[in-house]
Every structure is written in C-alpha cells, then in structure tokens.
C-alpha cells in the first residue's frame, strides 16, 4: 500500500471504497437478489435438433441453443470429440479440427449458392484444366 495521496482531481474517487457498496462482495451471496423468478426448476426445452453434450454431465440442459446443428464431415468429427471429457485435450483439438473442416464445407456451400462464386469456381477450374492440357501437349 502506498502513502495517501491527493485524489481531488479524480471525479468521484472512493465512492465504492467501502466493500459493502460493491455488488459482488461477497462473491457468493444467497439467497440471490433476483426479481421475477417464478419457477423452482426450469422446464425442459423440446429437443428439436441434434445437440451434443459434454460427457461430464448426465444429458442435455433444460435450455440450450439450437443454432447450426452438427452436420457433414465436421459434424462427424464433433460427435467424436464429444466422446471425450472436457479435461481431455483431444476433445478440444478435435473441435478445432472440426471448425477448420467446417470452413471448407462453408466455402463449398458458398459456391453452390452464389452464381458469382460458382462462375468464379468454374473459371478457376477451367483455367487449371487448360494449363494442365497445355503442359501435356508441350510434353507430347
């Protein structure tokens, strides 16, 4: 701790100096000061899409996000990742691998959906084919 200094140039210095004014002191406070709660246990959200869950818990949680269910090769890798616990490094490394595979799947999806991307892909493929054929003819 340093010697007391002049803080008059700091607006509102020390208004929360008393720890009792700090809302997260103590760190754990019970019962919680939470208004509006009217359930003892959350109702279960209907299970409409595939949701992977950590094997460190017994099943899915009462509420969950439903964005982008696992699919394709990346989904296959993710399902394998979730066979391992969170404390197993391979769980996370497989998920990172799945993310990279998913990026490639996303690029293919872009090509399929966008006429401009499809034209560009065909252009690149055509150019590559032309270069390959030209080289073959030169060798011959």
């Amino acid at each position, binding site marked *: 701790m340093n010697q007391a200094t002049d803080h008059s140039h700091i607006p509102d210095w020390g208004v929360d100096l008393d720890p009792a004014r700090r809302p997260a002191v103590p760190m754990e406070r019970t019962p919680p000061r939470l208004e509006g709660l009217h359930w003892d246990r959350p109702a279960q959200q209907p299970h409409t899409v595939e949701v992977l869950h950590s094997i460190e818990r017994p099943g899915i949680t009462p509420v969950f996000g439903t964005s982008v269910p696992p699919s394709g090769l*990346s989904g296959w890798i993710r399902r394998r990742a979730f066979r391992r616990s969170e404390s197993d490094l391979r769980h996370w490394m497989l998920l990172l691998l799945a993310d990279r595979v998913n990026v490639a799947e996303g690029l293919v999806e872009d090509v399929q959906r966008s006429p401009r991307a499809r034209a560009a892909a065909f252009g690149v493929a055509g150019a590559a084919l032309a270069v390959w054929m030209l080289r073959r003819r030169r060798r011959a």
Partner: protein
Amino acid sequence: MLATTYRRPYRVRAAHVPEPAIEHPDDAIVRVTRACICGSDLHLYHGLVPDTRVGSIFGHEFTGVVEEVGPNVRNLKVGDHVLVPFNVFCGTCASCSHELYGNCENVNPEATAIGGAYGYSHSAGGYNGGQAEYVRVPFADIGPTVIPPDIHVEDAVLLTDVVPTGYQAAEMGDIHEDDTVVVFGAGPIGLMAARCAWLMGAGRVIVVDQVDYRLDFARRFAQAETVDFREVEDMALHIKKMTDWQGADVCIDAVGCEADGNFMQTLTGVKLKLQAGAATALHWAINSVRRGGSVSIVGVYGPTFNAVPIGSAMNKGLTLRMNQASVKRHLPHLIEHIRAGRLKPRELITHRVPLEEVDEAYHRFSAKQDGCIKTVLIPPRAGRIDTPTPVARPASSNLH
C-alpha cells in the same frame, strides 16, 4: 432477417437468415436496437474458440424491443425496451442461487466449465447472438432488464457486458484505499476497469498497452498513468521500479488469449495453438504484483492450458480471482453510477455503423484502425429511439 454470420477466420458476413422463434415457454423474441462488437468477439473472429460453427450468429452485447413472449413470461411485455446481459442463466441452479449467473449449470449442454452466453460458439451453449435484427432470449423474466427512461440506449448496451465486466475486474482485485492498480490492456474493458479502480479508492492507476491512441484514451478517459510496453524491456522490472521496488498491489488482466508482447507466447499460443492463447498479460500480472497482492483476470482464455508462472504465484502468496461477469447482480449499482454521472460508458463508443457493414467493422476493430475503441452496430429495423431527458447530476459524492 439480417444477421452477422461467421464464415471463416477473419471473415464474417451480414447475411439473410431465418428469424428466431419461441423454443421454450420462458423465451422472448427481441428486435435488436443496438449491438456492440466486443473484444472477446475477436477471439471468435480469429477462429480461436473451439466449436465455432460456420453460420453461427455472433453478438453478446445488445439491447432491443420485446416483439413476442412465450406463454410463461409474466414480467416482460411486448414493446418493452430491454438491455440483455450477455449471460444466459436459469436463476435456480446452485451457481445462480449464489448470484454466479455467469456460471449457470442449466444452459450449456456442451461444456460444464463454461456458462451460457449469446453468440459465443457452441462451447458457450450454441445460442445465436444479437448482432442481428432479432434474437431469441431465454428466461425472459429474469435475464433482460427494462431500460430506465433516463438511461441512454448507448449506455444501456454497454451495461450488458463492458461496464459490469470492467467493474467486476476491479472488484475482484479487492482494491483497498491508495492501492496501486495496474491494468493490462487498454481496450474497453481495461479502460472501464481503470476508471472503476478509482471509484474503489485506488491511489495510482497504471494502464499498459502498445497502441498509441488507446493509451491516449486511457489518460483522458480513466486519468491513468500509461506504459507503452514496446518501450519496456522487462515489464515486471519496470512496474517494480515504478512502485518503489514493491510491485503493484493489484494487477488486472484485461487482455486474454491474444496478447502481444512476448514472441514465444504468441508463437506457441496464437500461431501454433500449442497452448490456449498467449498468456503474456497474465504472466506480466503475476510477476508485476507485490507479494501477497491480488491478480484479477477477466481476459478470455481457451479451455486447454497456458504457460503461466503458477510457482511464483504460490511463492508470492497471491490471490488470483477470475470469472465471467455476473452482469445482473451489478446492474442496479451501475445504473446508479451512470445516473450520477460517475460512469459515462458511451464515451467509449468511437464507431456507429449499420449492421450491413459488419464485415468492415470487424476488420477495423481487429486491425485497431481509425482509432477504434468500441463499435456499435445499428440493425436496419432498429427504429427510432428517443434520447432520454438528461437528469441533473447530483452534487459530487467525492469522498476524499
């Protein structure tokens, strides 16, 4: 609807996607009025967070108008303008019953180590985020807070993460009168933590970063001393010299896994992914704090492991405290601070851009271009928002 969708590392896209629906009787659908890009969104943007799926909608800082409520919702009504804490939480589990809303056990099936958060990968529950025109909000009766009429929407959107996280960062440092507080990182969270350190009675506040405009901002916004780590050969030694060889009383890591400043940490943590990000700031924090001091961590790291000097932390008798902010428990106090003019969060906002330009906005924030500190996205259907009537600021409650 229009939404910020992830495509690949360093690439997001404003794309048209289906609108969200009520999926649980306690849900609400909110039409987003303002959304922010957070520094931790950059970890997603850079492809560092495991289980970030292509097509996911980003965004965990947002305000919006309630458009639809589920059959069990009693306290919110259609038309309410709300701020939505970034934590998804149930209110009843063991963690929530101790006000640890960032550690809820009932909202994230994918990971037990992580709570639920909007738009932050499937590792945080797989919820779509608020950088969109509409978003699904679970547990609508306890999560969202109706924005008080005298609170500006731009202050409200920063109350969803930046202000509570910055405040909690300082709070976890257990600051005593006249303590020396070093904040690593001059992003929005670090700047807010530095400002809040003064409110808790710090004697000196020192902010460390390498970006000139951010250090300048720290001097103006937080009245902090600054250190440019590019000009310092050894950070711990430098802080010791600044503190009469004692070290700081409190060090706050407001950087997380993409820290610059140490080649080996960057190589192994960011480039090669051999550890869960570069723990440079945490390394500096542990080595710069005094014996018996406190280190507070709000910077985000990955779920695997990091090379940090835990032996020094033990031998120095440090207190290490860390968590995701429990936003809801801080809100009444922080709203009071904003009303009184003690905190002025919207001064952090440097860019206000349409949602359609989100790709460029992410790039600008990631590359630290154009003086970017905080970007607010405005969706096309945000609608007009009335500016609140300013309230007279009460006499200063400076206790000194």
